[in-house]
């Protein structure tokens, strides 16, 4: 529990998800009580919509997975593994023109708590009309830290339950929902399949990149050198060291108020080289994820980057001033 309390949350994103507790129901969650199986039947219109599109079964199947054996007082990863039918996609928690990311409401036994999801790097998905989204295809596992109560008895069982809904699209979109439940036993190891799903998600999580005052990221073995600077008003340049096959920038989902407006991210957010020049309509802070694709690498390297607001003009056009 102390671990949970001490880790800073990403409030902007975390607050978006309604995480429900059995013991401490949050006021905002009360408006959406956990549905009983009877009340979970889709409204007539949705059934009709599905019949019309001839898509009775869900396109996405969700299951709960664990990273480790739950032990009293420990924090482990609880994942929702989404398996998505070929050609369909679900949405990442990023700046998207369309769609909405999946949502979850947890129901956990007393004393168990779960945090907000962390989001693996996503794929660019474009459509005619310069429509740009960031999506997951085939499979994605969204992880959340699960805190096991200190008083949990070894060998005892607990039921974890997630009420999930998501929008799944290809040329058309379908809202789907599902309840995923998982009985877990204190001290019992998860299956290899669960571990593998968790590992794939961990491998695809953006690695945090702390830029120094000059906009240069630290040199870490096995990671690319990243630079991100304001080069002039409303212009940000991102450079990545070494030969790059493709570089993408995916802005975070904007906060409730404010947020940076990107100009033509459809074209500017992707490059066949290690350099991107972003145009923005403000000097506000910029946060997002870089996808670095290299020849021969099995998967892209994802790096989360965050650039402070551009301070007032004048003498800052060529170089960012160093801070004490």
């Amino acid at each position, binding site marked *: 529990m102390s*671990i949970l309390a001490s880790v*800073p*949350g990403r409030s902007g994103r975390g607050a978006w*998800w309604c995480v429900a507790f059995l013991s401490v129901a949050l006021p905002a969650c009360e408006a959406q009580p956990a549905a009983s199986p009877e009340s979970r039947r889709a409204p007539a219109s949705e059934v009709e919509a599905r019949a019309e599109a001839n898509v009775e079964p869900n396109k996405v199947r969700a299951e709960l997975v664990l990273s480790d054996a739950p032990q009293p007082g420990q924090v482990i990863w609880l994942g929702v593994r989404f398996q998505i039918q070929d050609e369909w996609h679900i949405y990442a928690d990023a700046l998207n023109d*369309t769609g909405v990311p999946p*949502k979850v409401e947890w129901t956990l036994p007393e004393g168990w708590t779960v945090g907000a999801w962390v989001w693996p790097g996503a794929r660019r998905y474009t459509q005619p009309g310069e429509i740009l989204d960031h999506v997951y295809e085939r499979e994605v596992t969204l992880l959340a830290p699960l805190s096991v109560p200190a008083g949990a008895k070894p060998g005892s069982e607990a039921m974890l339950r997630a009420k999930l809904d998501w929008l799944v699209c290809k040329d058309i979109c379908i809202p789907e929902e599902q309840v995923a439940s998982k009985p877990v036993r204190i001290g019992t190891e998860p299956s290899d399949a669960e571990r593998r799903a968790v590992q794939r998600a961990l491998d695809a999580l953006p690695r*945090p990149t702390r830029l120094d005052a000059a906009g240069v990221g630290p040199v870490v073995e096995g990671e690319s050198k990243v630079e991100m600077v304001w080069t002039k*008003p409303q212009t940000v340049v991102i450079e990545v060291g070494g030969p790059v096959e493709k570089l993408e920038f995916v802005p975070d989902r904007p906060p409730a*108020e404010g947020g940076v407006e990107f100009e033509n991210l459809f074209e500017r957010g992707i490059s066949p080289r290690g350099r991107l020049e972003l145009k923005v309509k403000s000097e506000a802070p910029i946060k997002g994820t870089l996808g670095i694709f290299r020849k021969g690498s099995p998967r892209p390297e994802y790096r989360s980057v965050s650039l402070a607001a551009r301070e007032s003009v004048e003498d800052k056009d060529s170089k960012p001033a160093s801070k004490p």
Partner: protein
Amino acid sequence: MELKAKRLLGLLAAGAFALSIATGTASAQGQPVTTAPTKEAQPEKKAEPKDKTEKKAEKAEKKEEKKDAKDAPKVEPGVAAPDFTLKDTAGNEVTLSSLTGQGKIVVLEWFNPGCPFVVKHHELNKTFAELNKKYADKGVVFLAINSGAKGKQGFGQELNASKKKDWGIEYPVLLDETGKVGKLYNAKRTPEMFVIGKDGKVAYMGAIDDNDDSKTPGKVNYVAKALDEILAGKEVTTKQTRPYGCSVKY
């Protein structure tokens, strides 16, 4: 603390990964977006000598700017709404400027009967029917526009005419099969809303409301808010929000 927990803690702390206990369900997508003034790029001081790659990049940039310049001006709050003429499902022509010319306030709604978010506001909830009912006799004209292409979801005069009837849409559903008008407005989602004042300028653009859920309507209807303010002779306070919905099927 055991090893696993430590490892996890390391991961968590290193990434500052989300661990905030969620405190609400407010949607980020339907929230107001502050509209930064679109000032011209400020004159740039001469920087240090440029290398080849930078020059190349500059060239590419110029080319792009040229291309952009050819395009129509960007639709945003305060600019004149581009005029158009489209046929509705009954074959009648509707011209924007002839409506604004009569002093009407015009609300454009990008439409696709197959989109769940359109279904949300036309079928699961009567958001649009109620809006139209409330404002029709106050000089407000609603127009739905379907910019879907042939062969794509929601296309076709017959389908749109029958959905108009089924859903009790008492205003024209315009067919923009080439997507020309949609692209003129840079409309990307259904529903995506534009409120055009009597002066023919865009007074509001963005989401219909502040809840991007596929079933539950929001607490704030931005279109109603903008219309109320216009009708009261006030300045529209929320001029632009981030729309949510399906993609327009161009």
